[in-house]
């Protein structure tokens, strides 16, 4: 947009502000027939944005929407796009907000140019260029918000709840699945401590078979959990440490101290039972297809 055409546009906006605003709002109301967005909100959003545009067009830097002069416009537009994205508006419903200003602006510059065809062509081009750029900003904000929402949802899935299972009297197991390095870990740990108290358990098995990466933050969380459980009177066994994870932990220099570790949950369970004076044995009588092992008092 040239400086001349932005100064013309500025003049039109000043002279015909109310007219443009009224036309824009009625376009909006016709286009977005959604209960979720009140007409008074639309009116306020349009008014604020148009006012910000008028200010941006009135000063230095007006010919380039990347300049600080346009900061207020960009921010307002991003805010509107952000809130629409969060309310589940489609991309076109969101872009309509700024694009529906095209027609009222065209009409205003047409009325302003009178019979001067060249001036009209210039002004029309300036409006088109400006609104297209603003629409891109709106779309970028929309996409960014949607991406963040999706990322958060994925994160939630990675952090699916970690149930605390009572395996046997006095023995709890915590099969951990997914990433262990966020605020969710705190919840998981509190959950475990709570269940230790409720069940009066003295052994808790933390199974990390489903944890893809054990870095120093994960290790720190595990160690904190073990320490806290100990304070509650329960010993922890960490199971499911695969060979490649064991090697990596050693290279990192992480010292799991005197924590008992076992390759599998089954091994850890055996250790836990032994601590309570129990063992798993095969019953002589049950050797058919349903033949099973069952824990019994030694």
């Amino acid at each position, binding site marked *: 947009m040239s400086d001349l055409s932005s100064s013309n546009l500025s003049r039109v906006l000043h002279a015909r502000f109310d007219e443009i605003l009224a036309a824009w709002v009625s376009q909006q109301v016709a286009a977005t027939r959604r209960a979720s967005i009140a007409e008074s909100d639309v009116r306020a959003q349009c008014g604020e944005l148009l006012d910000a545009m008028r200010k941006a067009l009135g000063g230095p830097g007006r010919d380039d929407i990347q300049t600080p002069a346009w900061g207020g416009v960009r921010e307002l537009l991003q805010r509107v796009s952000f809130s629409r994205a969060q309310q589940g508006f489609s991309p076109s419903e969101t872009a309509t907000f700024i694009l529906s200003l095209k027609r009222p602006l065209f009409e205003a510059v047409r009325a302003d140019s009178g019979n001067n065809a060249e001036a009209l062509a210039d002004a029309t081009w300036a409006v088109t260029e400006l609104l297209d750029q603003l629409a891109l900003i709106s779309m970028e904000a929309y996409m960014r918000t949607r991406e963040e929402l999706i*990322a958060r949802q994925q994160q939630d899935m990675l952090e699916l709840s970690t149930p605390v299972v009572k395996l046997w009297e006095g023995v709890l197991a915590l099969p951990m699945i997914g990433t262990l390095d966020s605020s969710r870990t705190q919840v998981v740990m509190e959950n475990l401590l709570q269940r230790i108290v409720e069940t009066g358990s003295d052994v808790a098995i933390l199974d990390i078979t489903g944890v893809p990466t054990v870095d120093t933050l994960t290790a720190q969380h595990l160690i904190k959990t073990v320490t806290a459980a100990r304070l509650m009177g329960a010993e922890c066994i960490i199971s499911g440490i695969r060979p*490649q994870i064991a090697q990596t932990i050693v290279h*990192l220099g992480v010292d799991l101290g005197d924590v008992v570790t076992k390759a599998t949950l089954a091994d850890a369970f055996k250790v836990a039972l032994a601590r309570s004076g129990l063992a798993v044995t095969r019953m002589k009588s049950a050797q058919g297809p349903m033949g099973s092992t069952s824990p019994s008092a030694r």
Partner: protein
Amino acid sequence: MLTTRSETVQIRQTSDIVNVRQVVRSWCLAIGMGLVDLTKIVTAASEIARNTLDYGRGGTMLIEELRDGIRAGVRLTFVDEGPGIPDIARAMTDGYTSGGGMGLGLGGTKRLVDDFTIDSAAGAGTRIAIIKWKSR
């Protein structure tokens, strides 16, 4: 040494660290890296990505697939424009942390990879490049 493929990954929020690990994992699988080396480099990437986010105020990771004769590997270059590290030797020391960490991220990463270079100075941001070759 030849770069046959590259991509830049943003590190701006916690979920980006999960993404970094996934990207590194898939690139290493693509060159047929074994499970042990793969786990090592993914863990190293997780460490440095978290430092980039927590201490470097966010940044990027450039991942490159490398060929050197018949050798294949990946290079990960983490760049941030954060406060930088005033004393690199101290930061590399096992157990040193200025946050609440274990202080094993930098030292541990160096032990997990084949090549480790760090450029940093107070006020100048941090650049860490690590290489892991696929063992033959």
